[in-house]
């Protein structure tokens, strides 16, 4: 699996809206992803994934025949069989429970939950796909914001800057990336992360992905 460049990442795409499917195909091929199959419903999705064993699955949540959460259920089912299968689900709206169902599948690695709106910011979207294909976790910033807004949370004890850092951690960014975004030193970010994990009673860990998972697991609880 070639992670550094998109070339060679074999993708299966599931999206029932023809216009959006064509648009996504355009984006993926432009950035060098190799789309091995593009399908319009969840059953086909499961079939082509079994056939092609792709490096990444990108799927809509709401698909035929029921137009409910077929795509998500297919994703969760496939990850039960193959827990390291990278899956990015696209949702039309923020839904914590959808994100939670997905993050609970497999060991929580190689999953992404993105709002369809993110697709419009082409570069960010592609970057998120690469992160997930490389085994990372990406949760839409809107979902993170909503989780942080929840009442009666010990999260209320976090400072504004710590919340900011937590959001970025949850989105899957490394300490250096966060430092660059917030115009602070990496050491300062490390200190914030340490404070956050301490305040939330989470064991500190080096690995970015595990930090995300730890935070999300806490948020879901």
């Amino acid at each position: 699996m070639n992670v550094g460049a998109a070339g060679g990442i074999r993708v299966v795409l599931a999206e029932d809206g023809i216009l959006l499917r064509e648009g996504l195909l355009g984006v993926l091929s432009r950035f060098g992803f190799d789309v091995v199959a593009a399908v319009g419903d969840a059953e086909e999705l499961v079939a082509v994934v079994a056939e092609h064993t792709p490096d990444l699955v990108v799927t809509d949540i709401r698909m035929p025949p029921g137009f409910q959460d077929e795509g998500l259920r297919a994703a969760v089912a496939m990850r039960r069989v193959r827990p390291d299968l990278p899956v990015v689900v696209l949702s039309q709206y923020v839904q914590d429970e959808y994100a939670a169902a997905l993050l609970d599948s497999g060991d929580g690695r190689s999953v992404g939950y993105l709002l369809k709106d993110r697709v419009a910011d082409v570069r960010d979207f592609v970057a998120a796909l690469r992160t997930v294909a490389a085994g990372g976790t990406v949760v839409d910033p809107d979902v993170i914001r909503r989780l942080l807004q929840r009442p009666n949370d010990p999260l209320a004890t976090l400072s504004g800057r710590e919340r900011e850092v937590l959001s970025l951690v949850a989105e899957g960014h490394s300490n250096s990336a966060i430092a660059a975004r917030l115009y602070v030193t990496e050491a300062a970010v490390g200190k914030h992360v340490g404070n956050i994990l301490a305040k939330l009673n989470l064991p500190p860990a080096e690995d970015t992905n595990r930090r995300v998972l730890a935070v999300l697991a806490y948020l879901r609880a």
Partner: protein
Amino acid sequence: MPTPEAPLRALLNRRYLASAGPWRALVYVLTTLPIAAPVSAAMAVLVLPWLAALSRLVDGDLPTRNVFVLMTVSLLLFTGFGPLAAVPLAMIERGRLALIDPRPLPSAHAPAPQDPVRWVRTRYAETATWRELLYAAFLGLVVPAVYGTYALLVLLDVAFVLSPFFASSGTATWTFGVFTVRSATEALPFAVLGVLLAPVLGYLFGLIGAGQAGVARALLGDRTGVALREVARSRARLVDAFDLERRRIERDLHDGAQHRLTSLTLHLGMARLDVPEDSPAAGPLGQAHEQAKELMVVLRDLIYGIRPQELTDLGLPAALRELAGRSPLPVAVTVADGVPRPSEQIEGTAYLAASEALANVVKHSGATRADILLARAGDVLVVEVRDDGGGGADPERGTGLTGLADRVAAVGGRLLVSSPAGGPTLLRVELPWRSPGLVLPAATAPGRA
């Protein structure tokens, strides 16, 4: 305005004689006369052979053949043509009942076809018609007898009261039963009795009016609640149609406009990648891209407002948590164990109620937090929204709560509000597990278990 009272209840009022009651009764009884007179005449003709037969039976004889034929003919006339007169008569009487009884009296008749033959067939097959015929018989036979008796009593009382004047004129002697009055002095007790009896007669008059009105209500009204049930059903149908329409709009927007807009935005994003930063097209293209993205948010909120997809997909608990998450206030959602999914209509109404209540809390209560409780009590779905605000919510003011109460009532539920000044406010919505309306055609596949 006091609530409309039944005539009989009005009689029990201590101030009955000073109220409008006696006057209502008077108008009602006086207007009965021109209606009862022809009915009574017709009834008398029809009853005559039966009276003849009865008198013969009392004498120990069987009715003659002629009398028997007449009896049969009168019975056939009564049952054959009676309904044709009884139905319009009942219409008049239902309208006239308003003179004494302010409570409306809906007809028990089902809507009938315009075609005369089918109209007659429908009417003859209805119980309501035969109850109306019974009322016609009551009006023709019982009413004249009662009115006559009462008239005699009134005459007697007038005679009592006036007896001293006549006695003093010395022109005649008066005999009341075993008493004979020869002078004004002897007549005095009768006069006193007459005066004392006057209010009793007043009450008796009221009683006659109320009795007649009661019979009319019992025989001419919609005892089985057909009309009301029809109203309830049509209201539920309207709500159903409204819900269906909402879902259609939501789907059209979601499957059509939202998809196209997402695709458009994606293409604009792609185009931006190809247009150099310093190109004259870069600025407008960037603006178009940003505006398209903002429009996506607007459209998503719009669709959310129509009917949140979570409600259809994941049910009430998830949708309520989502609702709480969107609220600017901290809102805790508590879902009791073992609440299965109710029907779509009930689910939609419960969600709407919680959403409306929460919007009210944010807008008016000044609360710092709110709680939503979802539970099932027997066959009732309960949604409670509490806040720690200033209270004083009043359904009489503002259309929010009234509209909500209407909406809840339309599916057979009820809305309870406790909101003392100073707070806190508790709004409780109780909905029947099954809605009274039609079963909606399944718009989507059944949700997850």
